């Protein structure tokens, strides 16, 4: 465990040297919220539009942070042999993946915190104190779903393939999940099965003060299960080529 923490610390130090990831995880949702978030009379998901869009943008920032940068880095590190180098140390085999998930959790914090602050002070979202941490933590843990997917993609594909793959997934889940704008009709129905929709809907239902349907939480767990399984298969099947 000490080794895993040492690696996590080194990874965080790396991120401090390389701040490009902020553009996707923080700047993009912040700009979208500033442009679209303050629609005073509008509503979505049964709550004020500003509140919905706050949760949506927090989710957007967190999941893009968990997916895009991570998948690219893992793929690159596999190609360059860093994963191989780590396997020659006493660090347990699972530590690399655990570290990536921990680092992903750390990198999504700024996006979530900044967007929620923006919602409160720019979007005039007023909530009971307990709802803020509930929403933040839901989005935060929801992002691990995409951290697991990033591991699956990073292990499976070469760096130059990773970029288009993650972009397709990123846009698909962002749009279908209703992160950019609420969907209606057929696409809206399909979109209800995405983890991005489920995360936002849980937050919206908390704000509405209604009981969160169990299906939403189960949905998130199922997605997590699927991506963890894909990641496990990817790690195992590439063991001899890493």
């Amino acid at each position, binding site marked *: 465990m000490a*080794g895993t923490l040492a*690696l996590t610390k080194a990874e965080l130090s790396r991120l401090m040297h390389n701040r490009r990831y902020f553009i996707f995880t923080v700047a993009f949702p912040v700009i979208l919220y500033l442009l679209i978030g303050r629609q005073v009379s509008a509503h979505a998901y049964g709550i004020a539009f500003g509140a919905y869009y706050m949760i949506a943008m927090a989710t957007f920032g967190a999941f893009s942070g968990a997916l895009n940068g991570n998948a690219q880095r893992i793929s690159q*590190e596999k190609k360059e*042999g860093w*994963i191989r180098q780590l*396997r020659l140390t006493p*660090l347990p085999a699972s530590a690399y993946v655990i570290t990536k998930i921990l680092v992903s959790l750390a990198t999504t914090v700024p996006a979530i915190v900044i967007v929620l602050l923006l919602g409160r002070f720019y979007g005039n979202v007023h909530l009971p104190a307990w709802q803020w941490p509930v929403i933040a933590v839901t989005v935060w843990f929801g992002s691990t779903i995409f951290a697991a997917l990033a591991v699956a993609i990073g292990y499976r594909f070469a760096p130059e393939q990773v970029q288009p793959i993650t972009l397709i997934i990123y846009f698909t889940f962002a749009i279908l999940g209703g992160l950019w704008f609420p969907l209606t009709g057929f696409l809206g129905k399909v979109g209800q099965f995405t983890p991005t929709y489920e995360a936002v809907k849980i937050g919206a239902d908390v704000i509405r003060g209604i009981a969160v349907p169990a299906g939403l939480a189960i949905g998130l767990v199922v997605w997590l299960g699927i991506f963890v399984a894909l990641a496990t298969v990817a790690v195992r099947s590439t063991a*001899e080529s890493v």
Partner: protein
Amino acid sequence: MQSKLTQKLKQGNYMSQYETGYGVSGSATAGLAATATATATATATATAGYEGSHGRTPVVSFENVSKQYGRLRAVDGLTLDLRAGETVALLGPNGAGKSTSLDMLLALRKPTSGRIRMFGDDPYHAVKSGRVGAMLQSGGLMPEVTVRELVELITKLHPNPEPVQTTLKRAGIAQFADQRVDRLSGGQTQRVRFALAICGKSELIVLDEPTAAMDVETRRLFWDSMKEEVAAGRTLLFATHYLEEADQAADRILVINRGRLLADGTPAEIKARAGARRLSFRLDKVDEPFLLGLPGLVNLEVRHDVVQIQSSDSDATLYAVIDAGYRPREIEVTSLGLEQAFLAITAEDDATNGNSAGETN
């Protein structure tokens, strides 16, 4: 002695030679029964003074280990033991199975059959116990951190490491310790990799083609620091296709070709096995059957009145010629390097087992 007149092993630049299929074709070299022995003979003394040695448990043992990639048998029934304190070179041409063998030893790949032990344990647990430090050709470094940060990280992962400052000094990287890892030259990168292999103060150090990206000066520095590691009692196993390096650095050489161990001995023994000296002279009446029966003869070539003999015991060979009443003229005895020995051993193997497989991979 079933040999016909055999083609002379070509001399010249050994690098270009065996990378293009050894420069030897179809020669059957007599007397080269280079059967590999499984254990070293001269290691008892080396073992005695080694702290933390584990009695008679080999540091590394391969028991009939094979690795199959599809139709290619990259490693074929490899059996060997390494004892504490030895410096062993795994010598073979590209594609001989060196890297695959080291990968299996380091638990990066699983043998198709056979068993590998390191310190009496399975490779994975031996690696995780921190008792081995390794440097692979394919091993990468974490980008975007400084050299010092990286060495500190890997040091922290080991149970009983060297102080970071000592590692930086030994690997000769202290002067650029604050540079970013992704902004180093090839030679500098290689030295950082070396630092990662020694920072854990591990009992066994495994290096795959360690000097591949190094210039002459860096190479010399590298072997100097490697000698310090060996003097400190570590066991060293390195793969190389530089014969010179194996000859100078190793006290034991394992010659490997097409996945099989062909010879195992000291550099001197390997040279002797292939016929360590070339004897040449002029002779008026050449009697080939007589020459082929000479003691120590490994290889014979006759061109007009010029006789060239590759011999494992040039003195005995020459005396036998003279004792038979011949008066050879213009006698020259030259020493054959490990290079020719290596070529002879692998050429023998290729002649017996077909030429193609060695070039795969």
